């Protein structure tokens, strides 16, 4: 049994040490966000975050993940309450088939947590490992930019009285 911290929840998983995280998420834990795209680290459809960095879950064996913080797109928000990037992808209609999008959002999230106002060039460089085949790239870049704006605006807001 391996204990994993996924989106802040401890999950015990009965998987062999060399099992890539992707299959634990999808198969053992029935989570849809991370997608199988290549199993080679070439396309980024499986991208999740580990300790704040974007990683290919198809290449990351669960044995290295004990005690580390895993985030998937399920941890960013829901249809009812989407996170800033999810909201921005909806607002920009930044999907066609959408298969790559969860990975795109997770890679973008890792960027925005380090750089709250990336330039277009920085966004493009950062997103390089992730492939989109439908040609949604321009909208994806716009959505990341839009989310960065929202996140900055949120961060600038004075905390309301009730909040600690």
């Amino acid at each position, binding site marked *: 049994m391996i204990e994993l911290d996924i989106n802040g929840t401890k999950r015990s998983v009965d*998987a*062999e040490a060399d*099992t*890539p995280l992707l*299959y634990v998420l*999808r*198969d*053992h834990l*029935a*989570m*849809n*966000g991370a*997608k*199988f*795209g*290549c*199993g*080679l680290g*070439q*396309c980024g*459809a499986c991208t999740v975050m580990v300790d704040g960095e974007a990683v290919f879950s198809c290449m990351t064996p669960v044995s290295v993940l004990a005690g580390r913080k895993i985030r*998937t*797109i*399920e941890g*960013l*928000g*829901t*249809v009812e309450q*989407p996170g800033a990037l*999810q909201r921005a*992808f*909806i607002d920009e*209609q930044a*999907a*066609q*088939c*959408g*298969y*790559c*999008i*969860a990975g795109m*959002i997770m890679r973008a999230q890792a960027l925005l947590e380090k750089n709250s106002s990336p330039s277009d060039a920085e*966004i*493009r*460089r950062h*997103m*390089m490992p*992730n*492939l*989109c*085949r*439908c*040609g*949604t*790239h*321009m*909208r994806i*870049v716009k959505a990341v930019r839009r989310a960065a704006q929202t996140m900055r605006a949120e961060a600038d807001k004075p905390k309301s009285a009730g909040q600690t």
Partner: protein
Amino acid sequence: MSIKVVRALSVSRRRFLAAGGSLVIGFSLSPKALFAQGSPAATKLPGSLNTTPMIDSWIRLGADGSITVLTGKAELGQGVRTALIQIAAEQLFVQPGKIQLITADTRRTPDEGYTAGSNSMKDSGTAIMNAAAQVREILIARAAVRLGLSADKLKAEDGAVIVSDGRRIAFGDLVGGELTRVRAESQIKLKDPASYTVVGHSMQRVDIPAKVTGGAAYVQDLRLPGMVHARVVRPPAYGAQLRELQSASVEKMPGVLKVVHDGSYVAVVAEREFDAIRAMRALAAAARWDERALLPEPSELFDYLTRLPYDSFIDADNHATTAGVTKTVEANYRRPYQMHGAIGPSCAVGLYKDDSLTVWTHSQGVYPLRKSIAEMLKLPEDRVQCIHPEGAGCYGHNGADDAGADAALIARAFPGRPVRVQWMREQEHLWEPYGPAMMTAAKASLDGGGNIVDWEYEVTSNTHSTRPGGAGNLMPAWHLAIPFTPPQPKPIPLPEGGGDRNAIPYYKIPSVRVVHRFVPSMPIRVSALRALGAYANVFSIESFMDELALAGRTDPVEFRLRHLEDPRAREVVTLAASRFGWSSYAPDKGRGRGFAFARYKSLGAYLAVALEVDVDRETGKVRVVRAVATVDSGQAVNPDGIRNQVEGGVLQSISWTLLEAVSFDKKSITSADWSQYPILRFPELPDTVEVHVVDRPGQPFLGTGEAAQGPTAAAIANAVAAASNVRIRELPLDRKRVKVALGV
């Protein structure tokens, strides 16, 4: 108006209806429609109503007010689900959110063939628009009877029939217990497009929220109770035969439930997905194959294709006396094999139970797949059901149908539990049917005024459809001990065309001769890739138009307009040029502009592209800096959906045109993954891509999805020529080719 109410609904059909009574309505209506689509002949019904005329095949109302719309088309990421909902909502006068749309399913929806050819709006959109209008009229008529008023005192509004005095009857209350089933009428009173509130207005796609939050959105996400996982071991190359397979140790691996072995067909079933992958790898390592060198020498591919036997089809042969020829220009163009390259490898789930098979598949054609699988398994068709959940974008005939066949074969070998099989990346790259390599030859003459007076064009191509028309088109069936073999390929006839799609120029030219050299024999597996032959033909014709404009010393846009009569064509051309700033363009060093236009299939969407490229003379690297596209898809349903599709088409075509070619050696395909078949990545994007939609309210839907592929390719080649004075006629315009052409 006379209303016919027909009682007919089978028990099996009833199963799928919402709780409560249902009303399925049809009616006969005198043909007084003011806004009828197209020009229906007396016997021809609009869109797919022509093949599926019963209204209850398309629209069902529940007593609870629920509205179910059915389409035989599939959501492929092109946004058709949302557009069809918009169309139905508009004609029914309901909020789009009230409509549940069911897509391709052989037990539930109409048979609309394939979701392909940019035909979904024309086929299904038109059918649903008319069916919805017919349903709305019958609801009004029913309410009129109930209220004792004449129908013209009533109107539909927000899911109800209302009277001017404020009385209203919800649609659900009009349903009653009686079930109705009638034929569609050929001419229905459609809503005045000027009063549209949903159609023609951008609507957020209904499928996107789940896709961005990790909801179940794809066949890959399907998790049925008791489901197990399978993987297939493919031969290392076309034609390879399994010589030896020691599978005993694999059968003992943890989690392995079964090894399926039938001739050269090998698969494994396991409880867990990664167990199946481990076992697949072990099987692959254990398998011994006999391989033969069957492929042509890559450097001689085009000579090889030229030497194969072919059938000639004369697509056009109009002669006019040509006088005053001052200049004749000739050019040959080539396009390599190119890949669909779905980001998600193909996947399907099969369940074989009680001698019946259900396959969940992202095939573009559930009905043809059902027929093919039934043939492969020797089952009656009614024992096979194919249901379409979404997959990753396919852009044509990729591995989807074959994965469906895998699921069928493995599920039959492992009955009782649902079996999910997904391909590995290298399987998708190596086994999908590619877009065919093509060659074209163009020759034309100009008169003293710089007008084209004659035009000869020849296109050489394999087939552009090996879609399942039977078990022989399912690749897994080739590997069985008793194999199925692919049928003799056939060309797709014009006006749609296959290799000759868009081979006839859309320009006014007195003498035109177009020949399609159809090559039946295929060294490499090919089939339909987005736009089919139109990609290479429009690349050729629109490159050639620039070469002719240059020969006639005319501006390329001006030259096209001079030969374009159709005012809608002229409008997209003029608009693209003006939005791009064509007339005031002043390039920086190493930059150039390019233009191209086509009307897809000569009967679909009008699309023009103007773009700017940057050519690095030292490396040969080309980057599209900015692109402007204008599109007229007829009545625009979801303008932002059209923009999204065209934007995607432009970017995908940039990738095809600058980077992509399937590579192979004499034994096997070598483009096994993305490192050996590179596609566009973020740093290579244009700075901007603009799409302008020319809406044509009330005009027929023309479709959008494939219209940008050809024009973008030609516009890039034209821009590279403008930037560097070098005309490149072979795709892709990759770094090496461009650098060689540029020289030192």
